[in-house]
């Protein structure tokens, strides 16, 4: 168990309903189905203005001049601001490297970069005024790939870098480089009976959360501002916003508004500072809501990648070595690129035993759209490539692809390429066995007595086939994802828990700054409080910055870390409550001296089940409150030359089996079924766990067959910033997703749980690709697969 907090036994009180392990329903469910849940775009204030952002129309250019006079003269416009209007010397922000201008200064580095902001009394007035701002650009050459980024005469995307990665990168247009070297690849290669090589391309995926970037900034009487915002991490936003505004952090109050999904796309700031600047400038509340077009420009995307792999194996199918190079396109600003590099490299060979590895991952600075966090975070791109390699190897060796994976599957005790031992269950072979054992969907399921149901065929209601030219394929994949922030990051969460009697009943209040983005953290917090404190009623306090940081809702970490903080705070509250009880009633019953007392069903009970007192009587009119930070085991940075180090907290594993049908004449794919087996350690809320697995699986399906932000390689301009042209899976595109949940406890984690949100996004994509390859016999080295890749009409 972690050493933080008070080590007490887990109390899964039979007398308390709605605790961990039950599929309790969301506390915000009723508000969300009645339309009353207040999302960030629903915020409204008397007398509020609307903000709008003018974005660059070119990817890389010097700004010769900006003329705002006509915009300012527009009736209904209250303010127009550019770089020159920023109030302090802090004019940049960024998650790790502060390289992102609040408003462009002198040049723009990507298509859609914010140049000016406008506040007006109607959103359309603001939009039209922004369109009247004249920006004179002088084009610069665009950097769009590794060759153009690292050419000897390459234009530097960022000149005069002084960030902490700048000293070790081979070129200033490389954000970060992480090699991982272990064993002797050259020697191992000589032992290999077969070697397979591959070059893979992963397209740029968008988070495509449905709730657009939005929020309301309200100026306050003390000169501060209150921001109601959809984000993944309130305190990270605060740390970046306050210096730009020139305000101390206690004058920037932040309250989490309803968040319509995130998936990594809200880790970076979007309109936060802009809304605050306009509110402080005008003295009026300012609301900014992106439309979908702006949203595609307003947040970072998943890094597109080029991946080069060499796998060797002996004739009996044991991996001898893996050599790989992963080139991630970070776009114009660093965002989370360094951490994505760390993940891509350290997880680059997948959940397999390989003693001899030579891995290199880099992220580029280019003039493409900035890329950063998205569900799966560097591990997704690698999984797509190493799983394709495993299939290639299986084919060369004549071994069943699942069997080959099982022969090489890591298990508890295996060393990662970083030298870190996997010190909790790693049921890779078992997950593959389970997913393979699931019943197969029936053949020709689209046939009925009334003929073909075209809705179940490739092409669907377009009625392109009644089964002619349709072939079926099956594919498997498995992946490994880290949980929590890695590489020595101080990844803590804070929880404040209060227990008191209200209306004659003991209730607990849980207050954290955790961003509920849909994942169900609020459900789980209430369950933890019920389990630990034996109360029926739990109030989840709205998330804000009036309590310490809860870290980011990312990296599959919230149930582990903020859940761990809530558990820890509850344990401390319980100790205080028991202390109170001992003071009040200890002399009446010797059992009060026991260290094994529990809170269950609103009572203090012995571990034998004897009731000592009602919590109502123990508490009386006292409230017991604890606010405490909680940390998981510390991690270490990866060595910059060898990549060695205990860099990760925990690993998460999932396996998929995809069944697809392909219309080979038209190149249309219908995914028939996408089965998943995942180890979750302990399912705190089984219904939510399955929902996460199915949702993550579907995002993996999307990038397998349809999702890609298309960037013009000549101009670095985004070609498809809309849901008309950037397609995400509809309910017709998404198959049934049977899920087999395995629960093998990780003894290092609260309740033995494992972070689960991301792992299913990894193996879903390569499983679908493997199934399409199986159906068509094509090599398919890029994702997403488009019809022309299947028909040979590229």
């Amino acid at each position: 168990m972690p050493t933080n907090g008070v080590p007490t036994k887990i109390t899964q009180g039979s007398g308390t309903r709605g605790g961990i392990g039950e599929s309790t329903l969301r506390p915000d469910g009723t508000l969300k189905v009645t339309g009353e849940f207040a999302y960030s775009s629903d915020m409204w204030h008397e007398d509020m203005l609307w903000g709008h952002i003018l974005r660059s129309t070119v990817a890389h250019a010097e700004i010769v001049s900006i003329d705002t006079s006509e915009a300012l003269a527009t009736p209904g416009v209250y303010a127009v601001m550019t770089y020159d209007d920023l109030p302090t010397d802090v004019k940049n922000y960024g998650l790790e490297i502060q390289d992102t201008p609040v408003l462009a200064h002198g040049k723009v580095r990507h298509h859609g970069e914010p140049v000016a902001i406008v506040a007006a009394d109607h959103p359309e007035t603001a939009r039209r005024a922004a369109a009247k701002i004249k920006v004179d650009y002088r084009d610069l050459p665009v950097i769009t790939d590794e060759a153009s980024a690292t050419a000897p005469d390459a234009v530097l995307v960022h000149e005069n870098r002084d960030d902490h990665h700048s000293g070790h990168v081979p070129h200033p247009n490389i954000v970060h480089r992480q090699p991982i070297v272990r064993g002797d690849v050259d020697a191992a290669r000589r032992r290999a009976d077969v070697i397979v090589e591959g070059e893979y391309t992963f397209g740029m995926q968008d988070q495509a959360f449905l709730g657009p970037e939005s929020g309301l900034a309200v100026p306050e009487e003390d000169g501060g501002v209150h921001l109601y915002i959809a984000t993944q991490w309130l305190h990270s936003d605060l740390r970046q916003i306050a210096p730009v505004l020139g305000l101390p952090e206690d004058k920037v109050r932040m309250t989490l508004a309803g968040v319509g999904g995130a998936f990594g796309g809200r880790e970076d700031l979007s309109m936060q500072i802009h809304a605050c600047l306009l509110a402080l400038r005008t003295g009026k509340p300012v609301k900014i809501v992106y439309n979908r077009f702006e949203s595609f420009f307003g947040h970072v995307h998943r890094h597109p990648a080029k991946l080069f792999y060499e796998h060797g194996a002996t004739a009996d199918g044991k991996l001898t070595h893996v050599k790989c190079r992963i080139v991630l396109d970070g776009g114009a600003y660093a965002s989370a690129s360094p951490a994505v590099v760390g993940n891509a490299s350290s997880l680059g060979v997948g959940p397999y035993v390989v003693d001899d590895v030579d891995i290199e991952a880099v992220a580029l600075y280019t003039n493409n759209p900035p890329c950063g966090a998205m569900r799966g975070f560097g591990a997704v791109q690698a999984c797509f490539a190493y799983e394709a390699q495993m299939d290639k190897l299986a084919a060369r060796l004549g071994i069943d692809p699942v069997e080959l994976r099982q022969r090489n599957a890591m298990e508890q005790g295996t060393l990662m390429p970083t030298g870190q031992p996997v010190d909790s269950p790693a049921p890779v072979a078992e997950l593959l066995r389970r997913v393979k054992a699931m019943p197969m969907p029936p053949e020709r399921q689209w046939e009925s007595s009334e003929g073909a149901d075209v809705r179940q065929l490739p092409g669907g209601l377009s009625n392109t086939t009644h089964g002619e030219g349709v072939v079926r394929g099956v594919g498997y994949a498995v992946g490994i994802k880290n949980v929590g922030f890695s590489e020595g990051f101080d990844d803590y969460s804070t929880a404040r828990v209060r227990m008191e009697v209200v209306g004659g009943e003991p209730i607990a209040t849980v207050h954290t700054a955790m961003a509920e983005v849909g994942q169900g953290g609020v459900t789980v917090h209430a369950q933890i409080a019920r389990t630990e404190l034996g109360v029926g009623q739990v109030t989840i306090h709205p998330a804000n910055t009036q309590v310490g940081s809860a870290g980011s809702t990312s990296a599959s970490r919230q149930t582990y870390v903020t859940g761990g903080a809530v558990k820890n705070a509850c344990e401390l509250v319980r100790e205080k409550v028991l202390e109170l009880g001992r003071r009040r009633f200890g002399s009446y019953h010797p059992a009060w001296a026991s260290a094994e007392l529990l809170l269950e069903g609103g009572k203090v009970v012995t571990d034998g089940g004897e009731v000592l007192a009602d919590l109502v009587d123990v508490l009386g009119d006292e409230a017991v409150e604890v606010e405490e930070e909680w940390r998981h085991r510390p991690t270490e940075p990866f060595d910059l030359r060898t990549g060695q180090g205990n860099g990760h907290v925990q690993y998460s594993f999932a396996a998929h089996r995809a069944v697809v049908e392909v219309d080979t004449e038209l190149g249309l794919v219908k995914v028939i079924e996408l089965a998943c087996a995942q180890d979750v350690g302990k399912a705190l809320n089984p219904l939510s766990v399955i929902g996460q697995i199915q949702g993550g699986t579907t995002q993996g399906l999307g990038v397998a067959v349809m999702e890609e932000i298309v960037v013009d390689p000549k101009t670095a301009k985004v070609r498809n910033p809309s849901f008309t042209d950037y397609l995400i899976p509809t309910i017709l595109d998404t198959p049934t997703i049977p899920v087999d949940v395995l629960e093998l406890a990780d003894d290092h984690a609260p309740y033995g749980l494992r972070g689960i949100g991301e792992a299913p996004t990894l193996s879903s994509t390569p499983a679908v690709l493997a199934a399409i390859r199986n159906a068509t016999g094509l090599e398919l080295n890029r994702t997403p697969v488009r019809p022309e890749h299947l028909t040979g009409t590229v």
Partner: protein
Amino acid sequence: MRIDFTVNGRPQEADDVWEGESLLYVLRERLGLPGSKNACEQGECGSCTVRLDGVPVCSCLVAAGQVQGREVVTVEGLADFAEQRSCGTGTRGTSLDEAKGWQAEGTDSQTGEGGELSPVQQAFIDAGAVQCGFCTPGLLVAADEMLERNPDPTDADIREALSGNLCRCTGYEKIMDAVRLAAARQSEGV
């Protein structure tokens, strides 16, 4: 311009509406009914689905002026609407006249407070079909309308009917479960 129309059974009047405003904007920003959502504002995602004289439409694609004198039902009025329907003529489906003649019950159709949930709303909660919830209002309106037309849908029917509503969180499986559950409860008269 001024627009008079009926929302969730109540006459509404919106003043100073600019001609370019959508029905979605008027509902959200002028009438205090933000339940209909603004995920794409280009008719691709279905999050703004409302019923206009009984027909499901993307309210972002309806010019506000087009609703003059017409009947709109939003997610805020869905529970009352379903309640009214179940107390109706006993036949399946809602005719245009019925839709136009429908009046809200409950305490406050502006905020949706005070009413019971409709079967499909309850099923979405029970089945775990709500995560971030941004797609939920549009899906509820669309699913409720589908169940009105087709009380015993096949899976393929459900997928077809809801194919205009994007969800990014759930992978749709729990949404399928919810609609199946609502249909089953409806057929059992629960």
